[in-house]
């Protein structure tokens, strides 16, 4: 009975985790994190979205991360605003910003918005730590996944314990 209830969750998790390597999973999650932190409606968010779908990363985990960080990312807005303002107000960068901003399509990126720039910088700053942590978690998960499967199989059918592992996995 309990397995019936847990099965959909387990299969959903498998859909996100089973067919990709830990590296792809971690990259997808990190990209999703950056996408989630950014305000939507600008070309930076659109570019990140295209990147997420175009690269060989785990799209599902990336979308989950984007949803999670979209919901919680507004908490960081005050800090992102200050950070973005500090960067965008930097006197030495004004000429560069102005030159870039005057390029075609540049205004659509909304990088003159303090929260957009601040969130992007926060995302970029944390992209590698998040990638690394996710990678570690995924490796640990992959390493223990076989043992969990063996343990589940032995509980379910003790006579099958002598059969080859590959057949059990199939």
């Amino acid at each position: 009975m309990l397995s019936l209830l847990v099965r959909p969750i387990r299969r959903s998790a498998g859909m996100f985790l089973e067919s990709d390597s830990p590296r792809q999973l971690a990259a997808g999650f990190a990209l999703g994190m950056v996408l989630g932190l950014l305000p939507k409606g600008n070309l930076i968010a659109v570019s990140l979205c295209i990147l997420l779908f175009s690269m060989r990363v785990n799209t599902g985990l990336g979308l989950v991360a984007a949803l999670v960080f979209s919901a919680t990312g507004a908490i960081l807005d005050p800090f992102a605003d200050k950070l973005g303002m500090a960067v965008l107000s930097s006197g030495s960068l004004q000429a560069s910003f102005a030159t870039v901003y005057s390029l075609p399509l540049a205004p659509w990126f909304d990088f003159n918005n303090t929260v957009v720039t601040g969130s992007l910088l926060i995302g970029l700053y944390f992209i590698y730590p998040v990638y690394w942590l996710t990678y570690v978690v995924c490796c640990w998960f992959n390493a223990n996944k076989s043992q969990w499967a063996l343990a589940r199989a032995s509980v379910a059918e003790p006579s099958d314990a002598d059969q080859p592992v590959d057949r059990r996995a199939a």
Partner: protein
Amino acid sequence: MTRMLRWQYALPRLALLIVVLLAAQFVLGYLVRWQVVRSGERSVGAVVEVGDTRVSLLGGRVTIRDVRVANTEAPMRNLLEADRCEFQFEPKALLHKQTIVERGRIDGLRFGTDRATSGAIADSVAATDAPLPGWLDDEAITRAREWLDRLHEKFERDLVEQLDSIRLTDELLARWPQECESLVQRVRELRERTSKFQTQVRQAEANPLRHGEVLDQMPDELARIRADVNLLNNELQDLPDLTKSDRRAIVAARKHDEQFLKEELRIESIDPNVLTAYLLQQRLTGPVADLVGWLRWIRRMVPAEKPRQVAERKRHHRGREVAFVGCPRVPDFVVRSLDLRGTARLGGQSIELVGTLSDLSDEPALHGQPMRLRLTTTGSMPLELQATIDRTGPVARDQLLVDCGGIVLPKLLLGGSNKLRLSLAPTTASINVSLTLEGDRLSGDVQLVQKQVQISPSVGEGLEHVHLADALAGSLGDIRAVATRISLRGTLDEPRCELWSNIGPAVAEAMDRALARTANYQAGQMLAQAQEKVGERLAELDRQIAEQQSELRPQLAGSNDTLELLAGDRRITGRLSFEQLGCRLPADSLFR
């Protein structure tokens, strides 16, 4: 890195994107239509309907057909309607996140057309203009009405019976019955006295010895009675002369009557400004209220709120936008030039409108140019309208200039009541409007000049008998042009209106002349009427006097005859002497 890219994933999607772009110009039509309806309804607060929308991505052109914007205050009418709107966008500006309509054209523009269905939005509250409290000079209208009431009262009164000549005549007539009665009584007494005296005399004559004393006094008594008869006769004879003094007093009273009538029919002149307000204020209330309503509508559509605040609210809710040094801020939406063609109704006439709307922007402060609207007519009525809506500075400034040279005005009825109305025949007029709304302060003038006017006055029923309307018509016939100026002051919520017109002074002057003529005429009429009444009453008095004379004279004559008879019988007036008495004794009398 190339190993990371999923070409089998990206390429189909790229192909799909191209297909989407090709289909975009069809899909965008629906999106533009949705956006026009949504933003239009949000800003106007009434239903906005769009017939067909086409977008040409290559040409950078958007065409919208059959646009109808309902009127919030009258949901069964359209605020405006257009057959075709064409906008030519600047493609480069789109790359810079700007929507610039380089030029556009709206054809078939109409205002105030009827709708088949209600244009009210269910959950929106119609922004109704607050009434304009106290902006009219109500006191002036009240004063004018009071003046007209007094005027009617003066001419409706019957002053004839209050004249001195009439009063004196009535007093004389009232006195006459008493005098007549007194005379009749005296005649009656005299006749009785005569009869009694005759009886005494006859008795005394029958027995003179016994009534010797009576006979002795008889001549004196006879003389007294005759004197009284003569006196009464003389009085009766002089009876018409007795009223001579009264008649003289009546004649003298006529001069007083003239003065009295002049005073009573004298009417103080009315203040020309009061008369102007009375005649024009209510007639002009509607058009001026409409004008103020249009200014209010402009303020609702283009609020005076600081554009930056609007822009901040409109933009991202998250974060702030930083303007880089050397990178000027520009508005998101600009319409550089929009040609307008349509029709409108003015003064009951249909006119063809041609005009240009330029520098329409969502952030005028960044655009740096105020929005300008210029409309001219192509028909027989030359009209030029220029509106400037300036939101570039810290204080919102709206200016409206209208110059209309040949509007044909229909027949107009001026005046707040039936006691005095002026009817103006259809005429051509020129209208000049110059209004400025700076912040919330309203200032400006509306001028109306009507040429070759024909004014027909009418007065209340109470004044018809004195022919005031005719006299007024004669005086107003000299007026050839009517100029009216309305000065607007105050604020948009509490506008104040000052009215000036040459019709007020002209009518006041004509009224003075007409009233003076009417008063003289009326006074003459009343004096003649009074004279006629006095004559009638005095003739009646004369007739009564003559009647009385003819009635009393025979009676006095009878008394006189009796006295004459008595006197004739007594040729020897006085007492008989003893010799006479002895002679009258019989011859054989012992005493003879």
